[in-house]
């Protein structure tokens, strides 16, 4: 059987916009040989911005009567 691993908010790397999870293997590392990996589940608060400066969609202008 496969080994399960759960990454949580405690694994979020700082300054990554909550997009990077890092898990440090104990005892200096883990050796993989002929292994596979899959996602069992992800639980996430849906708080993805749709208008941002990085998308380049946050500026408009208007011309007034003056």
């Amino acid at each position, binding site marked *: 059987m496969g*080994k399960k691993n759960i990454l949580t908010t405690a694994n979020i790397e700082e300054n990554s916009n909550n997009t990077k999870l890092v898990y440090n293997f104990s005892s200096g590392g883990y050796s993989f040989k002929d292994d596979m990996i899959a996602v069992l589940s992800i639980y996430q608060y849906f708080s*993805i911005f749709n208008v941002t400066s990085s998308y380049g*969609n946050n500026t408009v202008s208007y011309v007034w009567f*003056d």
Partner: protein
Amino acid sequence: MEYNITIPDGYYEISDLNAYFQSIMIANTHYMTNYAGQFIYFLEFIVNTSRYAVQINSYPLDTDIQSSNGYILPTGATWSVPTTSTLSQFNINTTGFGEVFGYEIGSYPDTQVGSSTLRFVSSEAPQITPYSSILVSCNLVNNRAVIPSNILTSYTPLGASIGSLFTFEPNYLQFADVEDGQYTQLVLEFRDQQKYCHKRSQHVNHFIHRNKKIKYLNIYTGDIFSCRLVCGARHSFRTPR
């Protein structure tokens, strides 16, 4: 005179964008009030559900319209009502915002001269959210069929409303090969999907995302509450013949 607006990063529906836009107009005293004290705006955008579009409305103003409707300039207004009928313009300056509204870059209307209300609808389908799926990459994965080769899975926050807890539980496990070796860390990254792509990998990207081209920039996801993984030897996951 042209007034620039920078919208703070966030999640907006069309109505939210209109509300923010009008809040800026209030701050600039670019509105009037009627006899009942209601605010009158001469530029707005609304959802046109029947046309699957965002509709921009520009209403004319001159001294005759003001007097016949009893419009009053707000206190502190630094502008005066034009004597000849004039329209205000909404300018879409970037392709990014144009995609949100489904408009080409340009001014709507293209001239301020006009005496009747002008309405515009999107020429393309509005994309209120630039992303449609989230890609999960893992440093252990080496998938030789795709570029980048470390994509573990992708999912779509289908049916999720802003602020709600979203769950992704695949019906069947999508296993990816782990590159043999010694690792000190397991690193997962969540990235958005956009319709642009790295030109070099365009054809390969089609393998992992039907007709959706991918850009690995603009990372923006919410808090990851938890992510469960399963890992083990290849033979242990194979179905016996």
